[in-house]
């Protein structure tokens, strides 16, 4: 859906400026507003779970992830008219979410007396989550162990490496999309990804 998202506001403006004599009637401001609102509601519905999941994996704090997701969509709603549609809506939203996350970490560093990590879920608890597939108990234990090891490796990654890693292997974004979301070049994204994978591999091999 997001690939086909266009800014209705721009469309309305271009429709208004069309030469007289064409069959298309100019859209009223109210109708344009309504359309934009409907379009934004669709964006929220389709991308909210993904933004929430990324923030949850990144912060491991359910409440904080929910709060930042709400803030992300609030910010997106405020700036919706400025969205030019150069990138996909998903990339744009992800960029907002990453910036909010950065702000959060920065504030946390400044307000060091606040125990904001108190609500964060532990690595062991996070690795308990596995889809109930048709697997044997042994396979499930093995999968859980592996998930725990990946979580441990992710925990030790730098913030940027973690963001790139999660965008690639959890959200399955393309390298170009990750570059757009993070504001990094594709080469830098590749380098961060390579380092992050190296650490995950070391963690997995170290415990094997």
């Amino acid at each position, binding site marked *: 859906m997001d690939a086909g998202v266009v800014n209705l506001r721009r469309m309305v403006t271009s429709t208004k400026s069309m030469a007289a004599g064409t069959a298309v009637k100019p859209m009223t401001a109210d109708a344009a507003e309504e359309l934009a609102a409907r379009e934004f509601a669709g964006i929220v519905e389709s991308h*909210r*779970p993904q933004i*929430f*999941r990324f923030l*949850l*994996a990144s912060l491991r704090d*359910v*409440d*904080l*992830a*929910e*709060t930042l*997701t*709400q803030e992300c969509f609030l910010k997106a709603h405020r700036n919706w008219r400025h969205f030019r549609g150069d990138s996909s809506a998903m990339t744009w939203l992800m960029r907002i979410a990453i910036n909010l996350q950065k702000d959060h970490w920065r504030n946390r560093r400044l307000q060091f007396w606040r125990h904001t990590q108190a*609500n964060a879920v532990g690595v062991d608890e*996070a*690795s308990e*989550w*596995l*889809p109930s597939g048709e697997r044997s108990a042994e396979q499930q234990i093995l*999968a859980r162990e*592996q*998930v725990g*090891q*990946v*979580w441990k490796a992710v925990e030790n990654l730098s913030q940027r490496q973690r963001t790139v890693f*999660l965008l690639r*292997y*959890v959200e*399955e974004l*393309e*390298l170009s999309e990750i570059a757009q979301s993070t504001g990094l070049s594709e080469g830098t994204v*590749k380098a961060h*990804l*390579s380092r992050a*994978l*190296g650490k*995950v*591999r070391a963690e*997995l091999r170290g415990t*094997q």
Partner: protein
Amino acid sequence: MSRSEKLSGEFQDPLADPIVADPVIAGALKHFKASVDAWGEAEFSRPRSGGMRSTAVAQHNWRIAASWAVGCLLIAGSLAGGLYEHRQRQEAARAAEMKAAEQKMRLAAEQRVAPMPVAANIATKRQPTGLKRAANTDEDLLATVDNDVSRQVPAAMEPLAQMMDGDGSN
């Protein structure tokens, strides 16, 4: 195209994509993604009373509670300070009163024990005025005597006095 196929196809550099060579890492990442998906889905679909509640609202409540506590402490402190000051003043006034009463009592006791010296003192204090009065009466007496004496001129001296009068008229 599946996810793993996509991953293996995208990375040309084998160092940058160890998943191609390492099925263990590929499997671990697959499990990791499935785990995060399951967790995210479960938390997202969980009925929530409001995501902001436990963090933002709790922080807000904490801030309100803290400001109330600080305000109450300030009020209590100022009240206690005022009360302490008032009490200190009362104590000081009482102490001064007691000191004055004690001094009065001491004076009274001293007066009771030795009344004579006090009377003598008063007498000695009064003496100069008595003397002055006596001196005054003596002077008055002398003045009257002198006056009387000066008027009774002796008869033997009468012609001399007349002579003096005659000389003065001349």
